[in-house]
């Protein structure tokens, strides 16, 4: 059976364990509310918010790859376009699950639809996600399920996919840009405030989308070993290299400008990132796995044409992006708005340190497990493998 071949027993063991942890975490969340969470009055957002922007970024980024094919006819990525759609479809709802459990009143999420504020980036985001999901489901239906009876119908189907993908592309750029703006507009948080965030979000979504697809395609495709597989991997590698280099530039410009300006409220959070107790999230995660490793693997002539190494580079970048998400959300909040505020009325919730609680970890890990499970199911149910795809006429 195909599933068995692509997804070894170990994969299912991981899925089972992570889902079990997730079930425990979810039960705790539902029974104890937020009491078992470790975010507090100062660091108000934690692991779940980081996990949410991580997954949503993947959804946007992998959709961009699909759009390259469906909108811009970049044929070299056609073999992975269906895969990209599947990844996009799974990661968006899974990301939203993380932000849903983060709400103080989960049962009121419908308020976002019935009384949205048009000036709040958060509600605009929710509407953009919803619109995108509808578009994405329509594309997937047209691509995977619709049986065209005639040449004519096939053509109109392709046109519809093209138009919908173009709309989808605009939507993902908007929601990633808005995702960055959600932080960028926060004038009260100097480390977030600024115009770079929306661009950074769009870029890092593309980086992580490309990287995850490279990782999946390298390790799960049943085309492994064929020339076409190698070619797709090499092309993905090149794209990833370019994007990672841009991310290096962005990161450098963000940090160097803040340090040059040396306004304490701006550099304190950065200092926490670089030399605080979680320095390794930046140095090993973001720099090591997200910059050094992929650049070495994708530049060195011995590895840059090897699908396996390109896949390793991709997985490194995926982990690094998660590290980056943590560093975006948490350290900027660790700076009290007014000096001395945290000692005014001591409370364990009013603190500048934050380590996620087991409930938070379990829920986040559970959502990863859910993504893995949905992926395996989607992979076996949908014709994402290139050879099963209907022949596409190259125009």
């Amino acid at each position, binding site marked *: 059976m195909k599933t068995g071949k692509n997804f070894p027993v170990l994969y299912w063991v991981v899925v089972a364990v992570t889902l079990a942890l997730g079930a425990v975490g979810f039960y705790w969340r539902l029974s104890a509310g*937020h009491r078992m969470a470790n975010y507090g009055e100062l660091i108000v957002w934690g692991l779940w918010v980081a996990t949410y922007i991580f997954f949503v970024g993947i959804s946007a980024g992998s959709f961009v790859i699909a759009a390259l094919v469906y909108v811009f006819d970049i044929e070299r990525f056609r073999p992975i376009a269906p895969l990209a759609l599947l990844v996009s479809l799974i990661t968006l709802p899974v990301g939203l699950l993380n932000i849903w459990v983060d*709400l103080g009143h989960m049962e009121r999420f419908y308020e976002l639809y019935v*009384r949205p504020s048009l000036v709040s980036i958060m509600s605009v985001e929710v509407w953009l996600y919803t619109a995108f999901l509808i578009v994405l489901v329509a594309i997937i239906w047209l691509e995977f399920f619709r049986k065209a009876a005639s040449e004519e119908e096939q053509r109109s189907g392709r046109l519809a996919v093209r138009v919908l993908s173009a709309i989808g592309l605009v939507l993902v750029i908007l929601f990633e840009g808005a995702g960055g703006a959600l932080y960028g507009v926060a004038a*009260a948080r100097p480390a977030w405030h600024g115009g770079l965030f929306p661009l950074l979000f769009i870029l890092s979504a593309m980086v992580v989308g490309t990287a995850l697809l490279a990782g999946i395609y390298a390790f799960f495709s049943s085309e492994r070993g064929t020339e076409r597989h190698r070619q797709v991997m090499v092309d993905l590698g090149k794209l990833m290299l370019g994007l990672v280099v841009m991310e290096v530039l962005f990161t450098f410009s963000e940090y160097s400008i803040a340090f040059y300006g040396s306004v304490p409220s701006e550099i304190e959070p950065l200092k926490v990132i670089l030399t605080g107790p979680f320095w390794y999230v930046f140095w090993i995660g973001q720099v090591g796995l997200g910059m050094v490793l992929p650049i070495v693997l994708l530049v060195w002539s011995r590895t840059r044409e090897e699908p396996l190494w390109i896949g390793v580079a991709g997985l490194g970048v995926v982990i690094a992006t998660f590290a980056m998400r943590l560093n975006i959300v948490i350290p900027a909040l660790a700076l009290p708005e007014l000096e001395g505020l945290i000692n*005014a009325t001591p409370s364990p*919730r009013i603190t500048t340190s934050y380590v996620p609680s087991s409930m938070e970890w379990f829920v986040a890990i559970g959502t990863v497990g859910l993504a893995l499970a949905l992926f395996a199911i989607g992979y076996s149910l949908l014709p994402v493998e290139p050879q099963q795809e209907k022949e596409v006429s190259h125009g």
Partner: protein
Amino acid sequence: MPYVPVVSEMENALVRMQEDLKRALEKLPSERRWVMVIDLTKCVACDACTVSCKAEKKTPPGVNYTVVIKEEVGTYPNVREVYLPRPCMQCDNPPCVDVCPVNATWKNEEGIVVIDYDVCIGCRYCMTACPYGARSFDFGEWYTEETPMIAPYETAPTFEYGEERVRRNRRSPIGNVRKCNFCIERLHEGLLPACINDCLGRARYFGDLNDPDSLVSELLRERYSFRLKEDLGTEPKVFYLS
């Protein structure tokens, strides 16, 4: 020598503010401009305001509508302590309002930034937007959690916004963001905010800035005042005298 407001001999500041309040309530809500004035030269950092607010609003651990920030400045032997009470500033341009995705928080016609507990989804975006750390999230905790019984003072109803609410299970205001509302429910009953009543050093004043005869107007006319983070343009309605 700090300026002592002109009050007739028979009158003290509390009585005078009470009179000011009565006059303000006779006006249309939109014509009132509630402000708080805090005299830093008189604050002794006793935290009576913090405690009176706790008692009035029955706020749980971690949820503090008003706090007194205490800081040491200088090095030994030239050390001095400075105290800064910090309620919600009821900003005229409140950055916490626009970010709310469901319009659960807004500046009402009296200029007080209020929260509708029945709508707030608890996303905490407003907390990231407030430059004064004035908002808290109600995690559903209790001071007497690990004792045989949650103390009655914690389960007594609050009358915030004039609604009788008991914190229980996960009902609002648990799971909501909460903040100082200048005790709007007391104002409408003709009472001063709790922290004003109970300030030991008589450092806190409250009233209608649109009334030139009010004590707060007089203080702000006669004394040098400043507001926190004025450069942000939030236009706080809490003034500090120094």
